[in-house]
């Protein structure tokens, strides 16, 4: 196998599938994954993403996941568009074409548009995961780079290379987000594996520097969710999410829908205000004052009449 980074295909390269006969004109490289490169491509008038790999079996395994998701989730436009091989000179390049998803990684999005988007993005992400889990899959390699956020916090998962059937060993993961790495459980594909990664996502997005520092300095035997929670409690942005994060790290939800619901409750205004010193939100105090004044003036009017 050649290194995926050493043989980039120049823009304008045309891939012609030898089985299905469709051709794709590559426009630009979108990203390099662990087992292939993803290009933005045009086929006729439509735009799609094309993943080119070296190992046809490995690529097909990924395409199988997409195909099975398409089968389970009818009623949306399909992820997987085509699977084929292109002949480029001597070499055969296995590839598959999929829906192109514009957007930017969560970390970039939050940096650009602000932390107030955490609630919406987190909610949409959990909803997406609960669909995936209901279909019998665990996403596995959940991390900022694999979650693209489009307009107004719309979330799409990309790179299904880690997606694993429920009950099997997670196929691909990233150390920092992996619950095995943090001695918080097994690498068996189950919904709680993804919840853990979601918790890590928010810690990474909102306090990345300290998290990376922590993962480098802690001895392996000291890696534990309680270290993560110490970090959470001492960060202004993570503190309001504390109860949810603690449950997610411990795998303490009944199912992903419950995790989603708990996240939604967390985002309600009175809940967020509960962290304030007084415990009484300003608007409520204001309303009370107004009603008091009204009451006094009405009483006075009535008495003095």
């Amino acid at each position, binding site marked *: *196998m*050649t*290194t*995926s*980074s050493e043989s980039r295909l120049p823009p304008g390269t045309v891939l012609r599938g030898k*089985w*299905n006969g469709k051709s794709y004109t590559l426009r630009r490289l979108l*990203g*390099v*994954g*662990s*087992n292939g490169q993803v290009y933005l491509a045009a086929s006729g008038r439509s735009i799609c993403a094309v993943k080119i790999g*070296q*190992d*046809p*079996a*490995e690529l*097909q*395994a990924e*395409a*199988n996941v997409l*195909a099975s998701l398409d089968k389970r989730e009818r009623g949306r436009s399909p992820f997987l568009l085509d*699977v*084929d*091989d292109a002949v480029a000179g001597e070499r*055969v390049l*296995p590839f598959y074409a999929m829906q192109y998803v514009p957007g930017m990684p969560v970390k970039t999005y939050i940096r650009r548009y602000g932390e107030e988007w955490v609630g919406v993005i987190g909610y949409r992400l959990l909803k997406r995961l609960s669909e995936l889990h209901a279909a019998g899959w665990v996403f596995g*390699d959940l991390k900022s*780079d694999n979650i693209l956020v489009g307009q107004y916090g719309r979330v799409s998962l990309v790179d299904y*290379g*880690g997606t694993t059937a429920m*009950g*099997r*060993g*997670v*196929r*691909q*993961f*990233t*150390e*920092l987000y*992996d619950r*095995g*790495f943090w001695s918080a459980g*097994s*690498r*068996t*594909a189950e919904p709680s594996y993804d919840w853990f990664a979601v918790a890590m996502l928010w810690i990474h997005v909102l306090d990345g520097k300290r998290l990376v520092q922590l993962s480098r300095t802690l001895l*392996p035997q000291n890696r534990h969710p309680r270290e993560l929670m110490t970090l959470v409690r001492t960060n202004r942005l993570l503190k309001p999410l504390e109860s949810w994060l603690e449950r997610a790290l411990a795998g303490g939800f009944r199912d992903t829908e419950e995790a989603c619901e708990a996240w939604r409750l967390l985002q309600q205004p009175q809940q967020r205000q509960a962290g304030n010193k007084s415990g009484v939100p300003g608007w409520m105090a204001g309303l009370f004052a107004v009603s008091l004044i009204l009451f006094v003036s009405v009483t006075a009017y009535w008495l003095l009449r």
Partner: protein
Amino acid sequence: MKQILLITDGGSNVGESPVVAAAQAYAEGIVVNVAGVVDDGAIGEQGATEIAEIARAGGGMSRIVTSRQLSGTVQMMTRKTVAATVQQAVNHELRQLFGVESVAELPPAKRAEVVRVMEDIGETAELRVALLVDASASMRSKLPSVEEAIRDLALSLKAREGESMVAVFHFPGDATDEPCVMDSDWTHGTDRLRMLTGKLKMRGTTPTGPALLHVLEFFRETCGNIMIEPVQTPSPIKRDDSVEVRSDYVV
């Protein structure tokens, strides 16, 4: 499926040739992978050549990495070897049944089916991995990373559906006539996995070849008749030399 994973930092200097020992293991159906651990960036040309040769003879793959990368590398090699072993067997069947050389020659629709079956086999087949750790003096500073890599591998294997066992050996042994020592017999998961710490004798020799033969003997004793690989192709394992992976671990 049987694998030996050798973790070392350089050349052997006593006893039988490790390349011949690896070739023998492969002939008996055991794939040998090699992880070379180098932190200061200097591995002799001789050491590097030997590492590559052992893996080639053993039908496996080799990587030279820093101790930080070891965990991920060990798991990637184990997983790729499982996939390659399944692929070999499947290719053999395909040749017999359809007269095609490999999965890649099937049209995508058929390929999808075959790959699904391959994944099932890879996930459910019984897997045994014997780790053989070079514990000679120069490896001392790297041993904590080695232990972590072993524990991490055991954790990943535990998540497989099929039965997965890990055994741990280190070399050289305590006595001059003892090439290597068993630290942990076949165990499932991480609980009873015993490690190397405190057991090290800092002898100057590196009997990689004899140690490999010792582990091979251990396989013979514990796994009964070792099947002979039915595949004729001499080096069918796909070699992947990419170092940069976007995800840290591919398991």
